[in-house]
């Protein structure tokens, strides 16, 4: 550690609270009256949002931690910024009729919708004014998983996505009840097919194991009994509402988690919500998302209680977490591996690129092992070091090496040419991560199979302009209040770079020396 030169000194001089000891009680306290500095601002925004544009980083750096958290939580939304694709409004009957008319043609249409749904969300992640909301949507998508490759219906998947936006920072009990009667979930975990006398255990098992309690807090018998309680739920409403149908439902007496009665699915969910293990399980999910890969059971107990005492108000839990010593602890800085969404969306947001088509975002995510709406299995994305293996690391480096540069050149071109034709990805036949596992992660729009690709001459022309904008960004940063070269690095990286940074590089070189350093993969 003796080799750490000025960087750490700068870090300590910029953060008004020097080193924090981990308080096992983890009570929130008045952290500071002064400005928290750039390292803390990066930490907060990398973890809760998907990075942030430079100006925002600098604004947050002037606030103290409590103010910053407050300001951030006030950005929470319940609706997406961009309107959902038009076909989203179709009723189940309309969709059914369309399928009846021509099954094959319908299959093709549906695959097109699936692509649009993916591209729509990728775009929303990029341009949303409340990235914290989208982070929670993504977290819940990885918790209450459904896979589009199984569910098929893009309508149901988008509805579920909207559900996470609407209730993802509201009350957890509402969210859990809504998930138990969500159409994508009914299709994914087979409640749709479960009936009296022939119960299907799929949903009941995952409800306990992954969604609400965790292993060790229920028995095989609970699963079997709960499966009977979940019989007879069917997608009926014109917008995919799930209702209990008496003639398929098993009304007999069951005993689930110690409660006995003629229980139905909602009764089972309500029983789950009386268990302390449930609050802790959700606290654990938040810890893994926001703090570190190694939860502290003692603190989870406390956070679980915070959640239950607040009537399951998720915002109360989040407030507690973001004000906790654990969240700010130096020990956990850089302990989380950026997910592909973090890496791609975070880099683009930081570089203020708003016009990368969803299609290209998804192609890049695919090369790093993440496909929106298609987590690998019902446990969601494992995250952490599992994001990094030899294949995905090479995919990540390719994006950081060529992808960002190309995106900036493209963006510069768009700005100079009035931004026509941007974002219309529905026409592009190239993107279907599922069908084409080897889709090139190329993001250079010049190589893109679309009408608005750039030719070589245009790339030559716009490349220097794009490189200048990096330089401009750097100068603006340095000119900001009490910022310097060390602070510039801290606005990108969780700790000192491990490759030798050549301080004399300019333009894209200046960017490369940061984003290609292994520490940029961490947050």
């Amino acid at each position: 550690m003796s080799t750490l030169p000025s960087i750490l000194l700068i870090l300590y001089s910029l953060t008004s609270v020097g080193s924090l000891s981990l308080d096992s009680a983890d009570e929130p306290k008045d952290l500071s009256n002064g400005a928290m500095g750039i390292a803390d601002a990066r930490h907060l925004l990398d973890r809760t949002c998907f990075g942030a544009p430079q100006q925002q980083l600098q604004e947050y750096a002037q606030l103290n931690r409590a103010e910053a958290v407050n300001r951030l939580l006030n950005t929470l939304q319940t609706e997406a910024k961009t309107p959902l694709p038009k076909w989203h409004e179709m009723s189940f009957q309309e969709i059914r009729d369309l399928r009846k008319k021509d099954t094959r043609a319908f299959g093709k249409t549906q695959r097109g919708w699936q692509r649009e749904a993916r591209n729509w969300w990728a775009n929303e992640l990029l341009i949303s004014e409340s990235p914290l909301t989208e982070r929670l949507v993504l977290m819940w998508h990885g918790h209450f998983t459904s896979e589009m490759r199984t569910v098929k219906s893009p309508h149901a998947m988008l509805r579920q996505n909207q559900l996470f936006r609407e209730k993802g920072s509201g009350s957890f009990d509402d969210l859990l009840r809504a998930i138990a009667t969500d159409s994508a979930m009914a299709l994914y975990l087979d409640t749709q097919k479960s009936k009296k006398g022939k119960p299907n255990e799929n949903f009941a098992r995952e409800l306990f194991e992954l969604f609400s309690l965790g292993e060790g807090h229920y028995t095989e018998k609970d699963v079997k009994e709960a499966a009977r309680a979940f019989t007879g739920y069917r997608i009926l409403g014109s917008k995919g509402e799930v209702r209990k149908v008496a003639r398929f439902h098993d009304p007999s007496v069951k005993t689930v988690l110690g409660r006995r009665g003629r229980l139905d699915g909602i009764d089972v969910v309500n029983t789950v919500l009386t268990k302390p293990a449930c609050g802790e399980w959700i606290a654990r999910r938040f810890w893994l998302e926001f703090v570190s890969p190694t939860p502290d059971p003692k603190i989870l107990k406390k956070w679980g209680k915070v959640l239950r005492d607040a009537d399951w108000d998720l915002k109360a839990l989040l407030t507690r977490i973001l004000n906790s010593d654990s969240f700010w602890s130096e020990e956990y800085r850089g302990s989380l591996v950026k997910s592909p969404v973090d890496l791609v969306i975070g880099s683009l947001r930081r570089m203020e690129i708003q016009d990368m088509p969803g299609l290209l975002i998804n192609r890049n995510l695919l090369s790093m092992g993440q496909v929106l709406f298609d987590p690998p299995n019902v446990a969601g994305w494992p995250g952490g070091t599992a994001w990094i293996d030899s294949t995905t690391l090479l995919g990540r480096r390719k994006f950081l090496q060529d992808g960002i540069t190309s995106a900036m050149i493209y963006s510069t071109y768009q700005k100079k040419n009035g931004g026509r034709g941007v974002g219309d990805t529905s026409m592009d036949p190239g993107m279907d991560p599922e069908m084409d596992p080897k889709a090139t992660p190329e993001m250079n729009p010049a190589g893109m199979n679309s009408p608005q690709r750039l030719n070589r001459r245009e790339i030559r022309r716009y490349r220097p302009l794009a490189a200048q904008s990096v330089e401009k960004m750097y100068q603006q940063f340095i000119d900001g209040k009490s910022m310097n070269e060390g602070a510039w690095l801290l606005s990108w990286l969780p700790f000192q770079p491990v490759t030798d940074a050549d301080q004399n590089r300019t333009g894209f070189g200046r960017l490369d020396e940061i984003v290609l350093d292994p520490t940029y993969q961490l947050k």
Partner: protein
Amino acid sequence: MEFDRRTFLHLSGGACLPWLIPGVEAWAFDDPEKKQIDLASGLRERTLILVELQGGNDGLNTVIPLRDERYRELRPRIGLKANQVIELGSNLGMHSALKPLTEAWEADEASWILGLGYPEPNRSHFRSIEIWETGSDSDEELQEGWLTRMLKSQPDPERAAEGIVIGGGDAGPLYGTGLRVISMDDPEKFSQQARSVPEVARGNDARKALEHLLDVQDDIKKAAGIIEEKIESSPDHGVKFPRTRFGQRCQIAAEMVASGVPCPVIKLSIGGFDTHTNQLNRHTRLLTELADGLAALRKALVATGKWDRTLISTYSEFGRRARENGSEGTDHGTAAPHLLIGGMVKGGFSGKQPNLGRLVKDDLIHTTDYRRLYATIEQRWFGLKGRSEVSRGARPLEVIRKS
């Protein structure tokens, strides 16, 4: 130590040669020094290709008890009819979708190990695959894959890696520290991209995530160098592989083995076996993809003279419930048969088909501890001395020919 062993091998090359021939048992020699040498040779000369059937393969519709009436009672709707089964003898047959494997079966190179499982089976996908991949008991949590425990005491710097995972999926039985595991989709693209990865001088860094990242960088550079060199002189096997995802993975595995990339374990996977609903069609499609891929792999390795040095083994988190569910599918179950196939395999059935008359809550009772498969691979395939941390006391099955 490492250096000495290699030097000795090199110097006494001619004398060592017979021991390097696959199948010569290590413990034929008493001299502990010589034994060491030979132990490593199994790992150097032979490859294990693992095929993970993700989601829990329905064993009872893979190897079918043809004349058992209880089979039809348990599976009135999804039970296979006589014309959907290929008879293999002993009143058992295999799903007709596995037809491409009959050539290997008739050549006595395919063995079905019946009724593999463990006591107090867990029915969660995640926990049960963890049990299978770590080789643990049902109520025990181990931090490392069973192959990790087997291989980490057998380092060999000349390997490209200890394991290569082809086409996605995790390291599974190779999980844990101390092994170099590479995952790739395509060897050429892999080598090309590896060139730009920087060399980073390593400090004594305690940050786990960063440490992992730098480890992966090092592994990439080393493996890419070796693979690139070997693939360049890859022999032509002349086999056209199926264009399915699994088929393409088999093709890359064939290329690795045929060109002699030094790596003891290759892991492939094929997903979608969680057939809760509408099982008949889905399962047929999956087994067809599996069998087509494996048959092509066999052809390619026979053509390049590597078939005797290859052992392919399937595994999966569990079998499925013996009694069908109400959605023309099957729920998570317990024991299942698995396939061993390779030039040195003694064909036939091994172990006992679980008794359909003795079910526990509609589930099969396993007849063979799944770790007997691991003991077989450790001792009979790689010729290593049996160690309890790998086999957990299970005995090897006699399903590998001596030479």
